């Protein structure tokens, strides 16, 4: 048994495996497959100040080694999340370490959700700011693709909460290091990346896009090399810890992210084909470390060997 304790700035987790927001519902949906308290953290689907219907159907399309989605952040809103037994009260009872992903249309919306969650924070380990959803017009990605806007929203949320703060970065930028630094400068304790990459798929019989929103976010094994590269570039640029995600479906995939510089990882789309993927990946990480006689996960974080150019 290697030491899997994961220190992410002010946040300490018993292991490095989380779920990616939007792929694990609010935790309750998976309790019958494994005890969700076993995870380093459960990151719940995005919470806004209001109830949100999301996008029209169809919302997903399967593509080679991945899928496109444009769910559009359907969700119960912060008050229902706090008080309805299906949401936070369930996560508390299940003993889950909960990270709440938050979103809004304006900066004040983000602050409002952060304040409400902080006021009733029992069972909430951290907040993750979603400025990278490619499927909602306002908010979401508009904040994530402009470093000035990113700083504004992160600084404002920083003032609205005492909880550890994670900023989830968009991959849809030219230089990820600038955005990672902007998040760090604005007071984010941790960064997480990557969110999905915009894509499109067309039904060649009907000539229609396969998703009602026309475009959707690509996730799954297809995006993993992009994610590893961006985690590598972001981790090099900042001194705060990085949570890596994007197409992880095995322990070996996870190890790649650790080597690239991630201190923790999140499993997302893989859960759809195997609900137990997060705990199987956790066990696999442990086995891999033992097999390589490495006593502590932290020893391999960022240890990719790059030959210096002469």
């Amino acid at each position: 048994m290697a030491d899997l304790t994961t220190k992410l700035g002010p946040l300490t987790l018993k292991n490095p495996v989380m779920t990616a927001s939007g792929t694990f519902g609010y935790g309750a949906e998976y309790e019958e497959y494994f005890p969700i308290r076993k995870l380093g953290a459960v990151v719940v689907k995005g919470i806004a100040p209001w109830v949100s219907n999301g996008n029209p159907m169809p919302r997903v399309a399967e593509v080679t080694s991945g899928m496109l989605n444009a769910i559009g952040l359907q969700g119960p809103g912060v008050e229902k999340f706090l008080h309805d037994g299906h949401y936070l009260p369930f996560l508390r009872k299940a003993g889950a370490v909960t990270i709440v992903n938050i979103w809004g249309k304006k900066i004040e919306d983000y602050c409002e959700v952060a304040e409400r969650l902080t006021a009733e924070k029992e069972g909430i380990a951290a907040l993750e700011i979603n400025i990278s959803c490619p499927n909602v017009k306002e908010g979401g990605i508009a904040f994530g693709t402009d470093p000035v806007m990113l700083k504004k929203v992160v600084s404002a949320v920083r003032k609205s909460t005492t909880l550890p703060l994670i900023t989830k970065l968009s991959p849809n930028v030219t230089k990820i290091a600038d955005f990672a630094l902007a998040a760090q400068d604005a007071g984010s304790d941790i960064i997480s990346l990557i969110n999905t990459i915009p894509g499109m798929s067309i039904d060649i019989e009907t000539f229609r896009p396969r998703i009602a929103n026309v475009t959707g976010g690509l996730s799954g094994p297809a995006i993993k090399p992009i994610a590893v590269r961006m985690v590598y570039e972001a981790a090099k640029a900042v001194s705060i810890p990085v949570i890596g995600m994007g197409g992880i479906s095995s322990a070996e995939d996870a190890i790649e992210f650790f080597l690239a510089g991630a201190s923790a990882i999140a499993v997302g789309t893989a859960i759809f084909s195997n609900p137990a993927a997060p705990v199987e990946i956790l066990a696999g990480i442990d086995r891999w470390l033992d097999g390589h006689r490495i006593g502590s996960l932290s020893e391999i974080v960022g240890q990719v060997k790059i030959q210096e150019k002469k």
Partner: protein
Amino acid sequence: MDYECKVLSNTCLKGEYFRIVFSAPGIAAKAKAGQFVHVRIPTLRDRILRRPFSINDTDPEKGLLTVTYKKVGRGTAELAGLPPGAVCSVMGPQGKGYTLPDKETFPILVAGGYGSAATFLLAKHAPRKGVLLLGARSGEDLILAEEYERVGFPVKIATNDGSVGHKGFVTELLEEALAEAKGKKAFVYGCGPEGMLFALGKLCLAENVKAELSLDRNMCCGTGACFACVVKVKDESAPEKWRYSRSCKEGPVYGAEELYYG
């Protein structure tokens, strides 16, 4: 729950229609009519999602689960190629099934195409035998009629091309069946294409007959987590408004009065 299930047989019923039998004691013990299983097809390497299938039949004593399916795309084509002995991950039973009829209820089952797979357990377990109204594009698409007759359900058929039975829509047979069932405690159970189900739902609401409809959606997680398979239902707090309901969790079976037809 998620089980590793061995394929016991996988045969062609006719044309593009197939039947696969799994050894799945955990699912067979619990499954109710209208629920579904979510299957990972092991040979679909570069396609990452599971495929949902209605539970057609179960044998709890022998631990058998039967799925009857049509070859419609890559997933089902690969499924049709699985030999006995192959092993699949099968999640189930998933979702909310039909309300089982009681002794007084006269069940009128209405199925379009391979929708007849989803209503079969109702016929098998109904304390009072009713009738199956089976619709299809043509005679080639009629499946399972003999099995319904074997469990005591007479079958009335409608085909769009008139090749077998009534020429027209199965909903036209329903009007007749409802008239014949006057005075009985009729309950309509439907499964098939959305257009047919909506027509069915509206007709039953107008006639004041209880109805439950099973909607067929492409699914992703199958557990209620991803919100990909949503269906518009009336918003309980404001009936003129709608909200999206997860068909894999709150459905796939909905009461006719729950659905939003706008």
